[in-house]
């Protein structure tokens, strides 16, 4: 048995081989303990009563602190609200945040700083990877009122595009849908995944895309019913990964220094073979042509499916602003599933500490291994959220493995809110110039 499997097995084993006190002992001791506490002088039981000379305001704060004590039954709701407060920023007013995030991603040490501005529905998000196994990397996103999305990377001028519905109801087999070109440096960063996520969220959900590097030696990804499938440049099926295993997708992307993303052309089908079968490699329907195009053959049924799911996606109003904001939140929590599946994780500890004069609740969750795994190759077993009880926002987040090693730590370094934005912050030309200068 491998060491990490052994360690996990021993841990689980101890939990399973549970030696418990009897129920009678449990109840008796509880009563004795509470009686012991009740027998203590009032000042001992309620230390705030010692503050006889304290002001009314102080007592009010004390009472508020008592009311904020978390119970296991409401901690998930409280945490969800704190996450919403931190990242689900309202459209009103000027918001400015800065966070640092470091950890070990698939064996690569990485530290990234992300700065985020928002005002009147416009978002700018700059991410800088300050440390890693590769060269420093910077990426920028700008979303101007959903009318324009720009992305950039080190040394490149921003590439801007207007999100459009990729195809309408008149789409028929043989239509060429759209070509999107995005380049990114992806040697060791995770941003390739971010770019791809943006595209799939916006325009290619349940559609088919091709990824290849500029030298033409690349690979293809199909995104279909929540499944990515890798096809190599010879058209051979490589593997199939689920949406929850994006790390594999990311790993594959990072094999290339840069890549192009294109929507494939859909041409009339001469087969009823299901695309799912093709993904499984049972009956390939992919045909690789020389040059820049990949042709994918799909059935009419599948085309209808693509059309409907894509239309629905737009009905769901997955706007660029929302998506970029979600990317920012996701940069903070690399284990997405923690937020989405709080009920699957066990709250094992709550405590209150003081940070810079603020009361901070620290919630520790033991992660269900099925849900507590996202990017890291080492399974995460514990996640800790620190919530400022005054602002009800997340201050930091830490994720650890079974041996208490920190896999990821993210902190909010700056939070600024004003009624209006400082002049020039969202000047598109200035932003482009700044990005280009970087």
């Amino acid at each position, binding site marked *: 048995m491998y060491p990490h499997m*052994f360690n996990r097995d021993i841990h689980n084993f101890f939990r399973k081989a549970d030696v418990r006190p009897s129920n009678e002992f449990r109840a008796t001791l509880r009563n004795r*303990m509470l009686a012991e506490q009740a027998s203590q002088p009032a000042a001992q039981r309620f230390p705030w009563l010692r503050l006889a000379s304290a002001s009314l305001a102080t007592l009010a704060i004390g009472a508020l602190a008592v009311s904020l004590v978390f*119970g296991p039954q409401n901690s998930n709701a409280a945490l969800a609200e704190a996450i919403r407060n931190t990242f689900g920023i309202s459209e009103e007013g000027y918001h400015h945040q800065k966070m640092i995030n470091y950890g070990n991603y698939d064996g690569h040490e990485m530290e990234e700083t992300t700065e985020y501005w928002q005002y009147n529905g416009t978002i700018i998000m700059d991410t800088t990877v300050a440390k890693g196994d590769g060269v420093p990397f910077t990426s920028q996103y700008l979303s101007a009122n959903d009318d324009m999305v720009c992305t950039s990377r080190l040394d490149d001028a921003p590439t801007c595009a207007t999100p459009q519905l990729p195809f309408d109801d008149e789409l028929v087999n043989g239509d060429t849908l759209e070509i999107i070109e995005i380049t990114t440096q992806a040697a060791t960063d995770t941003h390739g995944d971010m770019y791809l996520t943006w595209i799939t969220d916006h325009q290619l959900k349940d559609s088919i895309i091709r990824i290849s590097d500029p030298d033409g030696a690349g690979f293809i990804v199909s995104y279909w019913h929540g499944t990515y499938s890798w096809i190599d440049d010879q058209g051979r099926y490589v593997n199939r990964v689920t949406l929850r295993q994006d790390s594999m997708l990311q790993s594959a992307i990072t094999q290339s220094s840069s890549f192009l993303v294109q929507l494939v052309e859909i041409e009339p089908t001469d087969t009823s073979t299901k695309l799912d079968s093709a993904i499984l490699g049972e009956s390939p329907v992919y045909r690789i042509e020389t040059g820049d195009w990949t042709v994918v053959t799909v059935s009419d049924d599948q085309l209808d499916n693509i059309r409907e799911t894509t239309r629905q996606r737009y009905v769901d109003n997955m706007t660029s602003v929302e998506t970029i904001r979600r990317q920012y939140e996701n940069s903070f929590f690399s284990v997405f599933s923690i937020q989405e599946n709080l009920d699957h994780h066990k709250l094992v500890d709550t405590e209150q500490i003081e940070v810079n004069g603020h009361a901070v609740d620290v919630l520790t969750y033991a992660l269900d291994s099925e849900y507590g795994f996202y990017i890291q190759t080492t399974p995460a077993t514990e996640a800790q959220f620190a919530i400022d009880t005054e602002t009800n926002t997340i201050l930091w987040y830490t994720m650890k493995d079974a041996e208490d090693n920190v896999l990821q730590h993210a902190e909010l370094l700056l939070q600024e809110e004003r009624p209006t934005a400082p002049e020039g912050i969202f000047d598109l030309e200035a932003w482009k110039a700044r990005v280009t200068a970087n």
Partner: protein
Amino acid sequence: MHTLEQLYDQTLDQVFRYVFLRVRNRELAEDIVSEAYLKAAEHFNDFVPRAHASRRSWLFAIVRNCMADAFRTKGMQNVELPDDLPGMTATVIEHDVDTNIRLTEVMHTLAKLPERQREILLLRYQAELKNKEIAQLLAIDERTVSATLSKALTNLRYELRNVPAYV
């Protein structure tokens, strides 16, 4: 922040099995655990939260003191583990025979480990304390906890190398 009842509900099982596996006697374990929680009730509001100090490590410090008192007053030492582990298997989940067998094997192997390694292993996996809490409790560096734990697991794995479940 915990209330006393919350602390009790969240920690009793961990405290009990930690003490039980140290003293290997149910009655004695119950005495020590009772003593510890009564002391915790008495001094509950003396605990001053500091950054990175937890209620659990505070409680376990009381538990360890109570255990040390018991060892002193009863003149107990760390005894060899009996073959049939009386009082233990009956409390383990009844239908899981495999777990019972493995528990016996693992506990015998644990008894062979150096005291410090055994203690840290039990605090980590039985009491489910974090490395940071163990470091606070034992007044040692967190890195020492991590290194000792790693060594203990390596030793445990080596000692269990012939047990089918761990091959």
